[in-house]
């Protein structure tokens, strides 16, 4: 099975986020970008499928920042090809509607049975890349997928619902799936292997065509939520905090 894995870079939420001067976007100047966590799960699921059934894994990113590390890391993990779609407009960030139209154009020159991507990303505001891309390509889509298996020329996916219920669905190929968690935690790869990939592998660059951004709502304002009623903070060192918490639990009758 030949699998395409689009990876989106998203703000690292551990870092402080700031709003750009225009007031309707994140300030991207000093923002640290990391591969979307669920895209990392999508890559893992793709690599597991390749190990089980053969085929190839191609990772593809939009050149929205420092994507090379992400692509070389994917190669070091076992991906066969890495493609970077370049375009001047990506520095300002790109909506999912636009990203999916760029990916649609790039996918035309690639052969694949399956596209695996994260079910969602933390900075999505206009749907998610997977189902948008599927619709543009005229392919079926299932999201919130936990596992993929090959069966009778097609695939069966496990889709999660609230409360832990899982549905099994058959999906005709080619298809696009949104992975929420791979069957195994994403593999770790040592830096030496990534360095090796940097020396031996080549990132293929493709120029993006015109992105169709229609479909994302215009924002009037982006802001950090004002801390209204924040939690009452319990101050002090570990010992004082522990004492305060035990007193609190006692008062609420939780130590009975």
């Amino acid at each position, binding site marked *: 099975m030949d699998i395409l894995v689009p990876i989106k870079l998203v703000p690292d939420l551990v870092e402080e*986020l700031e709003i750009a001067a225009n007031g309707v976007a994140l300030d991207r100047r000093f923002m640290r970008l990391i591969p979307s966590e669920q895209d990392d799960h999508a890559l893992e699921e793709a690599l597991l499928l390749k190990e089980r059934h053969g085929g190839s894994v191609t990772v593809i990113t939009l050149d929205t920042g420092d994507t090379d590390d992400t692509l070389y890391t994917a190669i070091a993990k076992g991906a066969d090809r890495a493609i970077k779609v370049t375009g001047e407009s990506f520095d300002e960030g790109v909506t999912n509607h636009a990203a999916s139209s760029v990916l649609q154009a790039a996918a035309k020159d690639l052969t694949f049975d399956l596209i695996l991507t994260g079910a969602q990303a933390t900075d999505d505001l206009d749907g998610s890349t997977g189902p948008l891309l599927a619709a543009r390509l005229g392919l079926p889509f299932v*999201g*919130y997928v936990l596992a993929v298996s090959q069966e009778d020329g097609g695939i069966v996916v496990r889709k999660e619902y*609230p409360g832990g219920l899982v549905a099994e669905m058959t999906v005709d190929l080619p298809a696009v799936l*949104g992975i929420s968690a791979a069957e195994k935690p994403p593999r770790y790869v040592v830096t030496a292997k990534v360095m090796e990939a940097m020396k031996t592998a080549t990132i293929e660059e493709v120029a993006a065509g015109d992105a169709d951004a229609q479909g994302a709502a*215009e924002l009037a304002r982006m802001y950090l939520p004002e801390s209204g009623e924040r939690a009452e903070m319990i101050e002090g060192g570990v010992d004082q905090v522990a004492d305060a918490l035990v007193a609190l*639990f006692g008062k609420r009758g939780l130590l009975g």
Partner: protein
Amino acid sequence: MSKDVWVVVESLRGEVLENTYTMLAAGRTLADGLGGKLTALLLGSKAEGLAGTLGVADGVTYVDHPALADFTPDAYRRTISALVKEAAPRAVLMGHSSMGMDVASGISIDLGLPLVSACQTLSAAAGFVSVTCGGKVLAEGKLPEPACLVTLVPGGHKPQDGRKDAAPPVARVQPPVPLDDLKTKLKGYIEPEAGGIDITKESILVSVGRGIGQQDNLKLAEELAAALGGAVSASRPIVDQGWLPTSRLVGKSGKSVKPRLYLALGISGAPEHHEGMSDAECIVAVNTDEKAPILDYAQYGVMEDALKLMPVLTARVKQAKGG
């Protein structure tokens, strides 16, 4: 231009899902503000009985077809796209959920309609407010003209405002498009793992998140939970790592819990997590990130490394209990 608002009902094995009532509450507010009607769009097979639970709507459009008996992305998207195209309502609300998110993006492309996702509050006057970046950033704007799609997250509108004892008029319609040659089909359901600890029944939960760092540190939480007479639950990253089974997951894809004490250790508290524990009686959050969204809704907060606090707290709890 239409002023009507549609809510796409989500149901699973004969039961309407809670997020439908959040959507109906939002839809009611929006429709009243626009001066339009609120329609609940119900898809199913022999599911007309569910319409009786949708009393907040002015009317229910019920599409009955065997292929709609259970949610599948292909059949649902085809049906909704065709109906929305025909009636052209002002806004269509779907869940920011396993079902809604499967179809909303596709409908946006099918019909060329703008899509606002992760929307928390919605009104005719103020437009939409969406939650992004794990709850750390809000984005707002006017409702796109002349029509739009919205996926709604909980936390803004209250599900109880979406419930009303009334039987709305039901218009029964045939699927406007053929539902054969479907590319996604339901094969069956797999029940959640039974047995073990049921976190929905525990009165004290020690809940761990990414902040605990390593699997080995879980035992610190287990010891604390044992001392408190509670159980250990977790947020998504812990379950994705395979450190705890899905049955311990609190949040959107996991369980909704209502313990007397929810002690959140190293959990940032993204909206998906909040969804599962917002009804806890008392939330205490221990985190090293002072900007963690969980501190916006916890009653008590501690800026401390959970790994350092846990053993000390375990000892103090044991001491207090006279053990």
